[in-house]
């Protein structure tokens, strides 16, 4: 216990043994941190995480489906049924955006979201579309949609009965992008677009979360997405959370170390030749805030 106490004392509090500067902020330690950060960059590139995840995202169709229905349930609205046809339309729309290099509801050639829905064989009475890109987490996507009046209206529209999703990685405007397309609908005739059960989606290497278009085998009996989301959890979504956590925890650690060092240096009236702790603190604080912004992508 005493050893642990001494260790933290040495790490955070300036004293004679650490040359009156918290060990965790000394140049040699900063070099070690930088080396680890470079190593992490290299490792993630080496294991080709980029190709697996696009941008290390933790977004899954099951989670989006679950969160969308949760928002409806909160307001006493009936759950939306998962529609494979709408998911197919969403996937085609995402592919179209990558192929024609645009980020909009309407394609440059005039193609509308409704064209994709109709071409998937879903004849609708009502239809809608929400788009998102470069989010890190599923809940971030749904919460951004819920904070936008128009997207929120789509999620909570009582006329809709069905929903479909596509999460596709590709290159848009020259950069790796993760697109999320959510399509809503109410079939014109109930017998045309009958209710479908959510498919089980298991991400594998170099595979994206696209609707499974042809296999009845992928259907599962579990109606509740909560059960499905458990099945779809994989190592890569854990890695993406891990990356985000590393950044968040490490930047917070630096802020704490800077604060302690500044506090005790002032308390003990220490005079040192070094960079300004307050400046470092302000800089890292702004970067930490930007990290929170970066975790949220864009919606239209």
């Amino acid at each position: 216990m005493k050893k642990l106490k001494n260790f933290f004392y040495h790490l955070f509090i300036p004293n004679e043994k650490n040359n009156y500067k918290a060990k965790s902020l000394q140049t040699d330690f900063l070099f070690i941190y930088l080396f680890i950060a470079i190593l992490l960059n290299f490792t993630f590139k080496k294991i080709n995480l980029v190709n697996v995840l696009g941008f290390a995202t933790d977004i899954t169709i099951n989670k989006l489906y679950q969160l969308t229905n949760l928002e409806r349930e909160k307001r006493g609205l009936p759950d939306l049924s998962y529609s494979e046809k709408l998911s197919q339309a969403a996937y085609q729309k995402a592919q179209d955006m990558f192929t024609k290099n645009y980020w909009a509801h309407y394609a440059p050639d005039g193609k509308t979201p409704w064209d994709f829905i109709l071409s998937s064989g879903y004849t609708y009475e009502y239809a809608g579309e929400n788009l998102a890109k470069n989010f890190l987490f599923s809940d971030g996507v749904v919460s951004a949609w819920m904070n936008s009046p128009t997207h929120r209206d789509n999620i909570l529209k009582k006329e809709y009965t069905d929903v479909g999703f596509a999460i596709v990685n590709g290159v848009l405007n020259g950069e790796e992008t993760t697109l999320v397309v959510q399509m809503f609908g109410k079939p014109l005739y109930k017998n045309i677009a009958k209710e479908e059960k959510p498919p089980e989606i298991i991400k594998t290497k170099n595979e994206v979360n696209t609707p499974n278009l042809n296999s009845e085998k992928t259907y599962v009996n579990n109606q509740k997405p909560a059960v499905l989301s458990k099945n779809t959890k994989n190592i890569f979504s854990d890695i993406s959370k891990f990356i985000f956590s590393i950044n968040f925890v490490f930047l917070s650690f630096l802020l704490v170390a800077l604060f302690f060092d500044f506090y005790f240096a002032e308390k003990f009236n220490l005079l040192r030749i070094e960079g300004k702790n307050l400046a470092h603190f302000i800089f890292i604080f702004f970067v930490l805030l930007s990290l929170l912004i970066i975790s949220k992508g864009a919606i239209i």
Partner: protein
Amino acid sequence: MKHLVFALKKELKNNFLDYLILITFGVFFLILTNLFKGERFMEFILLLTFVGFYILWGTYHHLTKNSFRLKIVVEYILIGFLVLFLLKIILII
């Protein structure tokens, strides 16, 4: 805690303009990051600019205060690059 507040006040008062510039740039950095939310390349460029500015700011600040040392510049560079590489993992380019 009193002496900490006093020290902070003193530090801010003695270097008011410098900190004002740093905070203003930080606020602009956040506004622009929010504006280009979802544009990974732009987010990376903004981060790179902020890191570059911070290193220059640190160098200028210590030059004007006659406390310039190579060790200090290295410290600013290390912190700047550390942040850059950490966030680059998320903004994989």
